[in-house]
């Protein structure tokens, strides 16, 4: 079995240690790392699809994602030598002020990371201004706000309003989501995107970032 195939298998099994060893082997073999990453990313997309259909569950996805991170730790210093490697974009995510429900935000952060975006996870109960400050600091492309309660949805409205007040509305795209939210509400508050579930959020981010290019 080729090293890349063994690496793919170890990643799906969530074997971080094996992944680190096999990734180092690929580097030593002089493999095309960008092509290897493409292979692994396609495999992670398959993991995501299996999660979407509930053939596997979050723990399996997390293990595979951690294994992918172990691979990237080995690859990154090598890729840094290659000027043709470009980042896909930076997304700052968090739950709206007062909201402690993190699962939706966690899933979006996880799958954005798997899709190759740099994710800055601000956690739960995030102040509206903190979203903006952190987005500035990270030079983010997108701010993502999750609300699971109707009483925390105004927290997302506040982020959009503050961006306008600070004259920065055009600097960041804003996406919103969470169980009680809707496209209609996203339009009403002036957000740039909304998705019903985590998989959809990734597509929205991809579309928004490609639109900025």
């Amino acid at each position, binding site marked *: 079995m080729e090293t890349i195939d063994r690496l793919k298998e170890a990643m799906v099994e969530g074997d971080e240690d094996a992944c680190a060893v096999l990734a180092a082997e690929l580097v030593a073999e002089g493999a095309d790392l960008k092509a290897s990453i493409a292979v692994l990313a396609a495999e992670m997309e398959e993991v995501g699809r299996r999660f979407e259909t509930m053939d596997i569950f979050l723990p399996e996805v997390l293990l595979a994602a*951690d294994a992918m991170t172990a691979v990237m730790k080995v690859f990154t210093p090598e890729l840094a030598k290659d000027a043709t490697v470009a980042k896909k974009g930076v997304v700052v995510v968090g739950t709206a*002020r007062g909201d402690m429900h993190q699962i939706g935000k966690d899933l979006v952060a996880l799958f954005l990371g798997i899709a190759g975006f740099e994710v800055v996870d601000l956690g739960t109960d995030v102040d509206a201004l903190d979203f903006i400050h952190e987005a500035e600091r990270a030079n983010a492309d997108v701010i993502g706000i999750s609300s699971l309660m*109707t*009483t925390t949805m105004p927290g997302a409205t506040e982020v959009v309003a503050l961006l306008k007040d600070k004259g920065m509305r055009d600097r960041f795209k804003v996406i919103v989501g969470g169980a009680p939210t809707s496209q209609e509400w996203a339009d009403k508050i002036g957000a740039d995107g909304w998705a019903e579930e985590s998989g959809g959020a990734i597509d929205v981010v991809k579309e928004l970032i490609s639109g900025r290019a």
Partner: protein
Amino acid sequence: MAYRQWEIMERAATGPFMEEKDFLNKRITAKMREVIKKYGVKFDPAHPVPADDAMADAVWQAAWEFFRDVGVYNQDTHRIMEFSEEEMREALYCAPSSHTVGLGKDSRVFGHRTVEDPRPPFVIFSPDITYDEVDFFQACVAYLKEPLLDAICSPLLEDFQGRAIQSKTPFEIGGSMEHAMHLRSAARLMGVPGVCMIAVGTAETDVAQVAVSQPDWGIRPSDGRLVSSITEMMTNNAMLNKAAHYQMYGSFSGNLTGTIYGAYAGGAEGTAIMQTAYHLMGLLTYGCQFQQNFLFHLKYGSNTGREMLWVVSMYSQAVARNTHLVQDSNGFTNAGPGTDMLFYEAAAHAMTSTVSGANLWETAPARNKHHNHGTPLEARFAAEVGHAVARQGMKRERADEIVNALLAKYEENIPDAPIGQTFQELYDVAKAVPKPEYLDLYKKVKEEVGAMGVEFIY
């Protein structure tokens, strides 16, 4: 009684440190995998209401070990509140098996039930969704008119004084007070001034909960309160504030927990074990008097699918067989009001829960997310099914057959379930009664479910 309240609260500041990500990814998921394997817990899709005592006991043992070894994580202090085997046994032994809630003629006994218990379930009526501020009072009235209602959680408010209620603002406190005042007034006008209110759901924060603790116009010590856990097995200082306040104010406190199927607990096996473990968490961490179970599917936000009903049945049986704790089971349907699918789902959830030893909390329609999409009629139907199957002494094997027949009617439609109609479309709001066409649908489905083997009392 709050079990060793201050010794336990102190652990939020002194317990072992751990990063939150490690607690979730390593401690929770690793231990869950271990206990599923060790105790041989296995989902059986053929039997949504399993009559398998050994499996129910295995779920209990797995949950016991899981909770003992995992503990509860405080997000604010990044420390784990841990409990010894001896403390778990002591707290469980000392917990009362029933509580008299509400006041005077409206008081009721909210107690532990056994598997296949012929005593009817205690039924809490609640749509668990928000209503227009202008119709909120009449929605409360409509629920309070229901004869099988033992306690009410009531609709929620989304706006106060024409502005969206925002957590951690004065509008949350105002909206929460309006919620409590309207509910209290509605209860008096409907002739049930002492009814137990499990409230107020509009109050998300600890501050807003404290603001409504007022025996004249707000929440009394004879009422119920809820304190939640954060997914999974996590708490924070605001939750601990609520727990401490409820105990010292004197309300009956419920641990509001919903394990998410497909998330950190994994599939049906882990979800059943986690939900069982939450009974121990509520008792030991918050000193709760009852457990409010509202687990749901990650993708659909409901708990009436085949795998979810198995989970509901399993954790209910595990707790009913191995403890004398008081538990209730909260139905979350896929379909919305005004559809026959909602009634089928409500029947399946109520029947599964009742024969498995749970009390009922019914019914959150349309995946608990659509404004105004909830009426008392579907909750009435669920309550009638619960009373009927208990009174007729239905066994799990028979319930399993009927639930399978009900699932055949809606299972395939879960992904694209209709959201149905609003309270305003289905009810005469001024009179707070269902419109004739909605009553006709209810009667049609009741007849159909009766023909399946449910002996409705009237």
